[in-house]
């Protein structure tokens, strides 16, 4: 992706965080993202994010599992190799229910987790820029993109007026790449 400049403001409590997010959205600055150590309810609405459609993927995968199981077993028992098991009927729906149910759940779960990883862009070997080491510990980090048209001094004044614990400006790679977290990246060697 691209290397860009970002300004961050860190908060240690939810109240100033929501305050800041509201102000940023009304200010016209470009809100890149908000990093939190745990899910904060109400933050997606405050940021104007849409609801996720992940459950739809789960449903589709589940239906695939049901049809695969029922279809496959029916084909085997009626067409490919019907066997007379103790006089039981060739097509017996009650006997096929347990496996159908299990395969539904299996397909739905595996498919949904893979979709989740794809959407969140996470995978073993993926590396992303960590704006502050405490963003997964106890700080809520609001990240604003500094474009060519942004007055950096004005932006920093604005951020400092929202009561943050810390603010700074960083150069960072947007998005993700294949990398290791124990190695420093090229762009990190450029100071802000």
């Amino acid at each position, binding site marked *: 992706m691209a290397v860009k400049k970002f300004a961050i403001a860190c908060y240690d409590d939810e109240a100033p965080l929501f305050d800041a997010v509201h102000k940023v959205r009304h200010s016209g600055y470009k809100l890149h993202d908000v990093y939190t150590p745990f899910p904060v309810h109400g933050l*997606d609405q405050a940021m104007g994010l849409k609801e996720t459609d992940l459950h739809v993927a789960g449903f589709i995968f589940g239906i695939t599992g049901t049809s695969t199981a029922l279809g496959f077993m029916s084909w085997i028992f009626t067409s490919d190799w019907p066997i007379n098991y103790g006089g039981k009927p060739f097509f017996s729906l009650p006997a096929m229910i347990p496996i159908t149910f299990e395969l539904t759940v299996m397909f739905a779960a595996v498919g949904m987790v893979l979709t989740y990883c794809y959407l969140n862009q996470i995978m073993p070997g993926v590396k992303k820029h960590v704006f502050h080491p405490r963003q*997964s510990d106890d700080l809520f980090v609001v990240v604003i993109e500094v474009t060519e048209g942004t007055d950096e001094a004005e932006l920093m004044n604005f951020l400092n007026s929202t009561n943050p614990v810390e603010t700074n400006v960083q150069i960072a790679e947007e998005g993700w790449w294949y990398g290791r977290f124990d190695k420093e990246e090229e762009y990190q060697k450029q100071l802000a």
Partner: protein
Amino acid sequence: MHLKYESFIREPLVDGNKTYKDVTADICRPIEQKPSKLWYFGLVVSLLFLGFGAFSVFWEVYWGIGVWGINHTIGWGWDITNFVWWVGIGHAGTLISAILLLFRQHWRTGVNRAAEAMTIFAVMCAGQFPIFHMGRVWDAMYVLPLPNTRGPLWPNFNSALLWDVFAISTYFTVSLLFWYSGLIPDFATIRDRAKTKLRKRLYGLASFGWTGTAKNWQRFEALSLVLAGLSTPLVLSVHTIVSFDFATSVIPGWHATIFPPYFVAGAIFSGFAMVNTLLILVRKIYRLEEYITMGHIEAMNKVIVLTGSIVGIAYLTELFMAWYSQVVYEQEAFKWRVLGPYWWSYWAMMTCNVVSPQFFWFKKLRRNIVFSFILSIVVNIGMWFERFVIIATTLYRDYIPSNWSYYSPTWPELGFYLGTFGLFFTCFLLFSKYFPVIAIAEIKFVLKTTGDKAHEDNLALEEKSLEEFIHIAEHAH
């Protein structure tokens, strides 16, 4: 922004006036410290058991099932007893993670990570038994519906034993996915705190590059909810299918419709007891009593007394139905269970499963750590006897008296069972050293509404008048 309000009179879920920083520091402490001598000792003992188990299994695969004590009459002995025992234990983890999430029981956050890990390791142990009891283990692939050069020859989808294969595989996969997806943010926390290059690299790999954006968390919660919704019927169906291994047969004492609910209640019963056993040790050894509080232990003890009573009612129902049905084979089956040469196992089962959990009706005993620990072990022993009674003491007196026999386990069977304990504790010790035993992000999520500090603040709020309270609530974010 917190839609949940909890009154100060409720017991706090997190003690010690913790901040978010404290939570991270406390839970990461066992991972960041060097392991104690006790940990090394436990690991060595577990590996020894595992080694003996591996040797016993090799012996059985090489020489054949004949080295076991099973015979023509009693075709299933310790192998299937242990299988059902381990699978039953595994169900508590999923129940705590999934069902308690759907019921919005926030107390699950202190125990769910360790309970889910227990589930995965228990299912791994359980899975060994159906595989190795096949004898010709090298033909195990024929159990799966894979195209082959014999027709293709497909498995019998009418068979409860095959339903089991699908159920256990699905259960293992889904539990693993649910557990790991919850671990990803916690690995990111450990990665960001890591001091050595190796840890940064390995936890970086394990964390999948997680950074914790708002959208990521939104999807995380959606995924957790749906996986919980899938796992709940999965728990119920998997142990129902395991019960079908018996219920779909024609053996008196087995062919009964009470088996599915009886088995599911029994699984939850033994699983919660095992969770208690493990967590009482974990909280003491890793000094996490402020996160795994007495309230958590008490809640689990309440579930134990509930499910133990359900299991007791199931036993009485079986006896009643044997009498009421006037089917002489059913009546004889139970007579031989209670009064025959295996009477001692039946009475061990009754004492451990029906009588002992009743002590948990008393609050003083529910909140006593030593008593809870001892009772949790008694319950697990009782549940082992239940599976043994169902299997061996039903098979040993079947329709034809000339078939009647007796079963004693041999050393390879004992070794196999001890080996699974070795596998379980090796995995659990490694888990407790390198993985966070408590869900860090989830504890932080509930800290502001259910921690002791939050309750103290709520006390101040509750002393105001109703109008003032409404005014404050309206003007919060």
